[in-house]
């Protein structure tokens, strides 16, 4: 339904995208996976006709998109930004915005807004001022504002990044439901598990280039060096696994052994999601099998969510809410315990 041919994009002399060739098929969920700065957002903006390529061209249903007809493409395609941007007024005003532009009748707008809000679980907040919403509610509001348009192509930029668990679950459900309805979805993420769960096809983007593409299982199971390079950045480890009493003990180097609920022995690639790890000042006694002591060497602020890099011999990335972060009074250099269940260890 939309196709990029030899697309490059240069911003201020920096090549954000290099020679992208890509065909999005009607009805599929395509995930663009890549680290921060790999060009995911730029790619989505070009697919959404918000940016024009420096080189190459876009075909939308076989028609070449240019400055002149970009508006038509934008009427059938919509992008949900990574950071929720809300307009003044109420939640309802926000969701109705695109419908008003399309000059729909009042009752029709009312009906569709209501349906969209109930889909994302915001029906009770319809008359709240948009600026008073929490981070997760804002993101759901902006998703509702996009899906209410019933566009053929929905582009989602990191739809669940830095969200509270409730909002994350709702958003994932919505994506699945939309896909069932036949909406074509392209979503960008750096979350491996999400890519694996949601999509039928994954593109691995690195340095503005598509370095791998294929079905999720093929990518994760194969010995793709590009995949490995990407995943190294966040809780991706390779090591030797020994299975004892149904638990795999995986030596991932740096003197660190991880317990995983795996049955495979020998060399493995594993991943632990940052949000599955608990941070504590004291050692926690629990059923969780992994308990590692390390020191914080970097803190990244993502508004409501904080990402912390902890060196326990190898580097783990941990994600916690701002509230817990502030309550615990964490600082760079501080010693903390990382705790996670064996079942949180994913085999790739």
């Amino acid at each position: 339904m939309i196709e990029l041919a030899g697309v490059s994009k240069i911003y201020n002399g920096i090549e954000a995208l290099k020679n992208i060739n890509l065909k999005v098929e009607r009805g599929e969920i395509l995930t663009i996976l890549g680290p921060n700065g790999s060009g995911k957002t730029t790619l989505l903006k070009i697919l959404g006709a918000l940016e024009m390529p420096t080189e190459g061209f876009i075909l939308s249903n076989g028609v070449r998109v240019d400055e002149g007809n970009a508006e038509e493409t934008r009427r059938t395609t919509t992008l949900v930004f990574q950071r929720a941007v809300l307009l003044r007024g109420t939640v309802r005003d926000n969701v109705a915005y695109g419908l008003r532009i399309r000059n729909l009748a009042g009752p029709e707008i009312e009906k569709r807004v209501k349906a969209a809000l109930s889909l994302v679980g915001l029906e009770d907040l319809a008359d709240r001022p948009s600026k008073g919403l929490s981070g997760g509610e804002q993101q759901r509001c902006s998703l509702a504002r996009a899906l209410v348009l019933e566009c053929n192509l929905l582009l989602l930029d990191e739809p669940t990044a830095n969200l509270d668990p409730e909002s994350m679950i709702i958003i994932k459900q919505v994506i699945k439901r939309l896909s069932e309805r036949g909406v074509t979805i392209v979503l960008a993420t750096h979350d491996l598990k999400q890519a694996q769960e949601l999509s039928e096809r994954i593109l691995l983007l690195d340095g503005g280039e598509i370095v791998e593409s294929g079905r999720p299982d093929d990518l994760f199971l194969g010995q793709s060096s590009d995949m490995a390079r990407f995943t190294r950045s966040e809780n991706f480890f390779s090591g030797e696994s020994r299975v004892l009493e149904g638990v795999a003990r995986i030596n991932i180097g740096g003197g660190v052994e991880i317990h995983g609920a795996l049955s495979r022995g020998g060399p493995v690639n594993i991943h632990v999601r940052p949000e599955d790890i608990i941070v504590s000042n004291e050692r926690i006694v629990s059923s969780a099998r992994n308990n590692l002591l390390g020191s914080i060497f970097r803190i990244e602020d993502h508004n409501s969510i904080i990402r912390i890099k902890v060196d326990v011999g190898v580097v783990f990335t941990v994600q916690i809410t701002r509230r817990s972060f502030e309550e615990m009074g964490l600082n760079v250099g501080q010693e903390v315990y990382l705790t996670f269940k064996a079942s949180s260890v994913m085999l790739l």
Partner: protein
Amino acid sequence: MRNRNLTIISLATIVIVALGGFYLIQSMGPNEPHNLVVSTTTSLYDTGVLDQIEEAFEAKNQIDLYFISVGTGLAITHAQRGDADMILVHAPSRELAFMEDGYGVNRKIIAFNYFAIVGPGDDPAGIREKSPLEALEILVGKARGGDAIWVSRGDDSGTHTKEKGLWAQAGFEVSALREEDWYREAGSGMGKTLQIAEEYEAYTLTDMGTYLKYSEEGLVTLEVLVGAGEELINIYSAIAVNPDSNPDADFDAAITFIEYLVSDEGQTILREYGVDIYGRSLFNPVVELLKTGSDPTTAEWIEAAGFFDGTECPQEYRKGEYGLYN
């Protein structure tokens, strides 16, 4: 929906306000066929005498008077640029140049009074009751000794022109005086200049109208030290813009107004204006005086200061047969 309604309402409001505004402005600006634009010197207008003349004149004529109150210099510029139909000024030398350049015709002297040298009541320079030129000479001597300060208008107005003339008559170069530190230039209107002189306890040259007003209001305590004498005579004239230089100028209306100014009624208003407030007149009518010779000395002074080749308006600068000079 709310947004669209809001947009429509605000657009409608803007349109209504704009239309209403233009209507209001139109209704405020008089629409009579004849607007006579008179560029006038501030010392005449600011006294308020022209407001009274305007009322009396407009009651009798289908002409709407538009007074633009500016300095004599700017008044002449206005007329030269075609922005005025006539001027009321008080700088004879510049009036002659104005006519010589072909911009003005049918000059008529309408009134006179005296400039005054005012200064602090204790008069540190000791010029009280001296003749004007003698007073200036004494003043310069005292000022150079640090006992007096002079504030000049310095704004190229009629009064400033007069002041420069007086210094020249007394034998001083204004360009040289400007370099001396007791000689200060206000660069302002008469009222402001008086207030500056008040602050400095300085001497200055003023027209009587403005001085009396400021003195009456208690804004200045400066006293008139030299208030008469041939050199201080201040002559107000009306000049119509030459229709040859500006065909759009309303020449007929200008003549009608000049005729009114020199009529008995106009002259009476000029003489009586301000008597009830100041106990003396601000302007002296001139027509009667020149015609009857009732005060030959003053008449001589007026002729010396305000006539060119023995007449208030030489033949070549007269236009049409209006009986102005009979």
